[in-house]
């Protein structure tokens, strides 16, 4: 696992995989036959219990409940699950045009945000990492928006995108464009506006992941490359990019998962509008549940989104394992 070597705060960073280093002392203790080690069974469960209860109540439980409710006509108005609906909720979702359009908008948002969030973050990180001084300033500039509340970024960007008088309109007319009816008011461009705000807001996360990855590349590699006559650009192409391939894969998959869960910016900036041009999956789910009071149907939609996201999370896990194994063999 690279994770062992990338965490700077682990006091003794073992080059061997974490599992092996943890197993060795255990075996030692076992052979020595220390009584305290044998008695940790029930103790372990006591330590796990508090977190475990919350895990069951608010993570695993709701997941199971969601799957069950998706087969019932559950409503907010009545207690309990309601009548059995079989696959009706799923059939309904599949035949609803707004379900597909919300999925499409979610995908659209993902397509708009992932490339800039990966490429720009990479460029910013590589450039920042080269600086001898002043890194703190760029970290502040690129990372600070990431910890701002979505309510703050939405208020800021809606104001910037105000038609005719907003900062964006001013910049447009400065550059010689005619500011139109406002980027968020036009169904064709509203999602672009949300995407711009999101890229500005969240790039700091990927930027930090890339910086952490860059810090793990030994300097000697660049020096060796320089001795071989590689230019700066060639060093980036042949040393940095290949060595960051794992970070890049993880950043892309993490970013896709995050983008599929988009809700806040859309809710706050456009509320799904104009029309339903920016209605995303989580917006449709909460609308079906809390406006239409149809928990069962909303659960079916949740299950479908859930499956998509978990599928990507599984891919990410597999990629991680394969990469870790390859690192280990090397």
């Amino acid at each position, binding site marked *: 696992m690279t994770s062992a070597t990338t965490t700077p705060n682990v006091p003794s960073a073992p080059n061997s995989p974490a599992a092996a280093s943890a197993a060795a002392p255990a075996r030692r203790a076992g052979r020595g036959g220390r009584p305290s080690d044998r008695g940790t069974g029930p103790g372990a469960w006591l330590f796990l219990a508090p977190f475990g209860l919350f895990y069951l109540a608010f993570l695993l439980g709701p997941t199971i409940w969601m799957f069950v409710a998706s087969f019932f006509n559950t409503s907010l108005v009545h207690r309990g699950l309601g009548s059995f609906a079989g696959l009706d909720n799923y059939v309904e979702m599949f035949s609803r045009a707004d379900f597909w359009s919300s999925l499409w908008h979610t995908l659209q948002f993902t397509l708009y945000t992932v490339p800039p969030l990966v490429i720009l973050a990479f460029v910013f990180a590589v450039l920042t990492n080269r600086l001898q001084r002043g890194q703190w300033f760029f970290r502040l500039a690129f990372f600070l928006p*990431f910890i701002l509340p979505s309510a703050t970024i939405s208020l800021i960007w809606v104001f910037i995108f105000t038609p005719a008088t907003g900062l964006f309109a001013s910049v447009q007319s400065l550059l010689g464009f005619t500011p139109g009816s406002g980027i968020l008011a036009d169904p064709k461009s509203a999602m672009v506006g949300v995407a711009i705000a999101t890229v500005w807001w969240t790039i700091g996360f990927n930027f930090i*992941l890339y910086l952490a990855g860059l810090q793990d590349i030994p300097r000697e590699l660049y020096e060796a490359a320089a001795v071989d006559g590689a230019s700066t650009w060639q060093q980036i192409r042949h040393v940095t990019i290949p060595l960051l391939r794992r970070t890049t894969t993880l950043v892309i998959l993490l970013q896709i998962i995050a983008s599929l869960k988009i809700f806040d910016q859309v809710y706050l900036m456009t509320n799904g509008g104009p029309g339903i041009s920016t209605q995303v999956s989580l917006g449709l789910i909460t609308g079906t549940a809390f406006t239409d009071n149809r928990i069962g149907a909303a659960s079916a939609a949740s299950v479908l989104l859930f499956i998509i*996201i978990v599928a990507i999370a599984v891919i990410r896990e597999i990629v991680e394992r394969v990469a870790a194994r390859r690192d280990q063999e090397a």
Partner: protein
Amino acid sequence: MTTTTATTSTPGRAGRSGVGGAISAAAPPARPSGAGISGRTFTIVTWIVLVVFAVIWLIPSLFALKTSLSENGVAALGANEILSHWYPTLHSYSTLFGAGDIWNWYLASAITGIITTLLTVVFASMAAFALSRMRFRGRTTVMLMILLGIMIPSQVLIVPIFEMLGAANLLNTYWAVIFPQVPAVISVFIFKQFFDGIPRELEEAARIDGAGLWKIYWSVIMPLSRPVIAAVAILTFVGVWNNLLLPLFVLTNPNLMTIPVGLATVQGSFGQRFADIQAGAILAALPLVLLYLVFQRQIVEGVAGTGLKG
């Protein structure tokens, strides 16, 4: 290129700090002529590109700040007016603080943030302690459940979580915001990662002195784990403070609303008071900006941890 094959076999961190620095100081990299962009040109380009983008990245926040320090009347006229008026006023801030709502929101955000953080840090570190330091039957199963938990997108669970909180009569209480955010599985992973690196000898010494499991956790492991505790605590707090989706649906009582929900629900009633709106946006973010300035390192390391191990 030869470099790519050389890379995979290089042992990660050992050489970097010591040897690397010495070499680079001793032998400046040779630059043959005609090999594309030279190092110095590249450094200049680096600075220009970074500064341009950093300015672009700073503009939205600075513009919001400037707007919040303007009169509502000036702000309503648009960006050009806001930027050409130089005299700042704290009028919007005093209006917001005088109205009272914002104090309730701050209180709700602070209470939910602090309690969630405490519960998460203690419970997650306890679970991680068990997984890192103890052998017991079912450990593999627990590890699998944790892994599964990381994959579950909790936002998608908003409907069942709402239903469960309703059934437990917890809607419109702070607990409705706190409880669902406690099982942040990623924090167990971050703690476990850190605990795995603490040498066993320390705890064995305590054991010989007769310390029990709880004593070892509380007096040996936790005091050694301050940096990771800080990282998890701050990230949890920031996450709770910024959460919109959950409190938006489980809190309908305006007196209990957290800042993001409060701002979202009253946005319409601000009307043409553009400066007040931006002041609200700034106030929502202010505690986090202060936290960032104080705990930059922990936040940055924590984020790096969530990404690489999540």
